[in-house]
């Protein structure tokens, strides 16, 4: 009897140790004393999980807590980084790399990892440990997407019915005959929309799909970098980078202040077939109206009421919403559940005004709808009180992921810092 007790005590201890080493739940992890340089709401704490990983764009975390990060620049010829915390202190000790392409998109769904280059989408099988079965056995799901440099990120997300959604950004600011050229008018209809400026839907179980076999799920979206499938509503949500340079292109219609504050950055709830109106319109969150773009006869006053969808949320201009995540975990207080986190990469075309963004915001949801108010959730990435010039920002938030314990992970694509945010009260 005594022996049995001893064994069970030992085995319980062993199991406890094992749990501590593998689950690395938020309660046992010590945050950085300076919260990784971030300012957070009360009760939240942060740590740098890893640093100097490379130009980490979007990230995914598997059930075991390993982090997969997509790189925008190859690291010794490889474009995906795998980071693992082997001792349970919340910081990753091992870094391995694979895949020979740069890109932005990465996601895990079921037992597969999906990743994108700037032209293709690939799929890798994961084993029961959440590791890649064969990193050389990438299945090419999608090929031949437009990549002309500008807005070439192919962000991805997946639904629960075997589909993957891929953003194809428009290689243009506002579909002018001459891109970003003062006074040049918009092409009518905009020919770019055939193969870009929208979200395409593909199957997760078919190889070598193209524009011809995919579905143009939504159009009129200039450049979506953040997108996520909302499982509560079973609906696609996207964040669009609004157009640039109203003042520089049409100085007689827009002054520098208006041009710094407009048009809105927007989040849309997307249904199949939706048209968000780029390049013909832009959104003005001050007026709460869709405005006719100056390239198509707009003057800063003409509104457009029909045809195009309204945003679910609108934000000040140029802040560059690069990451979108609906929070489904139980670690954070209840008000965060099913709300949206958005990583704003930070602006560049608000000068002569100071730049804005460079933080992660939270958009509260109630009954499946945003309350209309948003709040800065994590700030301080740039290391500056005010960012006057974009190159001064030390870190810029880009990708978001939720860990198995409900921690929020944030990637930075300047220095390759991976942050983890936990609730500890």
């Amino acid at each position, binding site marked *: 009897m005594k022996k049995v007790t001893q064994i069970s005590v030992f085995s319980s201890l062993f199991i406890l140790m094992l749990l501590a080493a593998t689950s690395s739940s938020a309660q046992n992890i010590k945050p950085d004393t300076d919260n990784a340089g971030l300012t957070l709401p009360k009760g939240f704490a942060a740590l740098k999980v890893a640093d100097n990983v490379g130009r980490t764009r979007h990230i995914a975390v598997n059930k075991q807590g390993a982090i997969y990060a997509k790189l*925008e620049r190859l690291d010794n010829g490889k474009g995906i980084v795998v980071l693992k915390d082997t001792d349970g202190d919340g910081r990753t000790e091992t870094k391995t790399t694979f895949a020979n392409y740069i890109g932005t998109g990465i996601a895990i769904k079921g037992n597969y990892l999906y990743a994108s280059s700037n032209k293709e989408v690939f799929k890798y099988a994961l084993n029961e440990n959440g590791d890649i079965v064969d990193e050389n056995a990438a299945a090419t799901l999608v090929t031949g997407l437009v990549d002309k*440099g*500008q*807005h*070439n990120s192919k962000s991805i997300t997946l639904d629960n019915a075997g589909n993957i959604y891929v953003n194809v950004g428009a290689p243009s600011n506002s579909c002018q005959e*001459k*891109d*970003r*050229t*003062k006074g040049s008018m918009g092409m009518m209809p905009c020919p770019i929309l055939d193969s870009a400026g929208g979200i395409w839907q593909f199957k997760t179980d078919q190889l070598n799909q193209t524009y011809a076999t995919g579905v143009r799920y939504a159009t009129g979206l200039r450049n979506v970098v953040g997108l996520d499938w909302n499982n509560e509503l079973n609906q696609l949500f996207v964040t669009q980078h609004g157009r*640039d*340079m109203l*003042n*520089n292109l049409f100085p007689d219609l827009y002054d520098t202040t208006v041009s710094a504050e407009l048009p809105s950055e927007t989040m849309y709830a997307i249904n199949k077939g939706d048209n968000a109106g780029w390049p013909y319109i832009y959104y003005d969150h001050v007026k709460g109206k869709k405005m006719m773009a100056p390239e198509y006869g707009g003057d800063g006053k003409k509104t457009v009421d029909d045809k195009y969808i309204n945003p679910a949320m609108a934000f000040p201009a140029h802040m560059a919403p690069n990451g979108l995540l609906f929070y489904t975990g139980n670690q954070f207080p209840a008000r965060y559940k099913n709300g949206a986190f958005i990583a704003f990469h930070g602006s*560049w*075309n608000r*000068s*002569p005004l100071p730049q804005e963004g460079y933080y992660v915001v939270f958009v509260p949801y109630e009954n499946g709808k945003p309350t209309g108010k948003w709040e800065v959730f994590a700030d301080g990435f740039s290391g500056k009180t005010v960012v*006057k*010039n*974009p*190159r*001064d920002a030390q870190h810029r938030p880009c990708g978001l992921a939720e860990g198995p314990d409900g921690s929020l992970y944030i990637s930075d694509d*300047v220095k390759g810092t991976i942050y983890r945010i936990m609730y500890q009260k």
Partner: protein
Amino acid sequence: MQRIFLVFVVMMISFTTVTAQSNNKLAAASAARGKMVYLQRCMVCHQADGGGVPKLNAPLDASSTVNGSDIAKLVKYIVKGLNDRIEIDGEFYANAMPAADDLKDQQIADVLTFIRSNWSNKAGPVSLTQVKQIRSKLK
């Protein structure tokens, strides 16, 4: 004879100094005009500090191209814009540069003189004559 030579040398030195000073003044005036062109036409992308935007718009500050001796290339970028994806000091930049072919020759000389001598840049001025010559050869 020695004295005459000395006088000649002194005259040469003072002449060179005077010319250099007036050249400096001309360059400073050109750069001051160029700054106004820069603020209106270039700053939105290349930024107030000339640092550009990482991965989107190329920096002008400390750029080997901007500080280089190939003035023709710089004039061409302004007049024709830049749509090709080229590597600049080890980086690629995603946004196209629009052509600013409405700028006058003098404005181009001025803005290049400003850009080449501002921030950490210390390259020489660009003259109206140079811009005229280069531009006449551009199609």
